[in-house]
């Protein structure tokens, strides 16, 4: 039974439901999970204000992703933080069985931007390759390359290349 506190379905809520994993995932490629939660809300409030200018519904995903990236970079600048790029590259990664979510996310964040975002969307937010392609208006080929090469680099970062 829906509570009074839950939002009523509207076009805005439908947009949020469809693109929230995309926006959250893009943010998570740059900032902490807690910050990504908060910034995602800000992205949608900002986006809804300009929703009426969107003439091509198919481009909503790339637009929201760009807004999210800008938001993340502004946040990092404002808080004088840089994405942490050190740990996993500078010292041996823990054994696979001892890896934590934080270890893996750090490793993903140390990858090139295109691979980083695609892997977060796939492994954290649970979007499939076709879904990522559709929401970012990318070709399947580009997403496939990002996923495969990103996973290759991630395996090396985690020290498990060649391990079955």
């Amino acid at each position, binding site marked *: 039974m829906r509570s009074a506190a839950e*939002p009523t379905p509207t076009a*805005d*809520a439908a947009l949020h439901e469809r693109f*929230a*994993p995309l*926006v959250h995932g893009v943010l*998570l490629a740059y900032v902490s*999970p807690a910050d990504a939660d908060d910034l995602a*809300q800000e992205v*949608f*409030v900002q986006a*809804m*204000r*300009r929703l*009426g*200018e969107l*003439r*091509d519904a198919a*481009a909503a*995903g*790339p*637009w929201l*992703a*760009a*807004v999210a*990236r*800008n938001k993340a970079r502004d946040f990092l600048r404002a808080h004088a933080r840089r994405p942490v790029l050190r740990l996993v590259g500078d010292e041996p990664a823990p054994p*696979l069985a001892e*890896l*934590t*979510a934080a270890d*893996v*996310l750090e490793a993903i964040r140390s990858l090139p931007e*295109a691979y980083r975002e695609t892997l977060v969307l*796939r*492994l*954290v*937010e*649970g979007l499939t*390759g*076709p879904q990522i*392609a*559709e929401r*970012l*208006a*990318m*070709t*399947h*080929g*580009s997403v*496939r*390359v990002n996923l*495969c090469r990103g*996973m*290759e680099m991630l*395996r090396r970062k985690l020290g*498990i*290349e*060649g391990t*079955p």
Partner: protein
Amino acid sequence: MSDDTRRHTAADPPEGSYLWDRSGPPDPLVRRLEALLAPLGHGAAAARARPRRARRWALGAGLVAAAAVVMLVAVLAAPARPSGWTATPVAGRPGVGDGALHRPRALAVGEWVSTDASSSALLERGGLGRVTLDPGGRLRVARDRPGEQRLELARGGIRAFITAPPRLFLVDTPAATAVDMGCAYALHVGEDGAGMLDVTSGWVELVGKAGPSARVPAGLVCALTAGSGPGTPRRRDAGAALADAVARFDAGSPEAVGDILAAATGDDAVTLWHLLPRTARAARERVAARLAELVPPEGLDLDAALDLDPPALEAWWDRVQRGG
């Protein structure tokens, strides 16, 4: 190289693989990472923060509804005025108008910003994004009004990072107009008006002053030729044979189509689709046959596409974008 390593270093995950779309035998490492990382995702965050998020969302929805009403009234009455562009020197001493750009300042419509071999400048507009003018460039604001933000790039290179809604931001060059569709890209124009577009995120539509337009998704590049308009988009990492054949085709050698078809792989459907309106009937049939191998046109009117019927071409484009 062991079988395991070969599997781990395959060029692309085949369609139907677990990494791509969770089909096929589950990859143990991918499964483990999914299980580890899922608690950090949006779904888990929403569940944890539901009471707080619901209050914020209900408040936000109310504000958004109010803002939408205000916006609708404003649009019906009169469009809101834009905030304008500012230019900031990034390196060296760029020029603006008849003088030098010493510090950030507002730009007037029609005022040129120019950079020499050692200078660069940053143009920004609130709510739209930012454009970096690289050394050796010349750029001005051509139009600054609600619904249309248009720059003119006479020469040199820019790198654009745009957060505005699609089709709001355009860049005129001597060869074509780049229409932003929500993206980041680099665009370079030489002294002869020829150039190259490289899209790194989202996609850009290039509308030529002559010839068919081009739709350039992320990961692809497209040449521009003064007097001919946009060339044929191809993957940035396309092999030398394909890149050379596309360049020859764009330079006016229709016989290069055969080489393009021979070099095209499963990732080159966008390139082949763009060849359809750029080729004569006989060559077009060969292009369509090869494209049909990559992106089967089941349910589409292939004859209409060969006749360059716009709805038929659009329907095939939808398939190409979705990967078949």
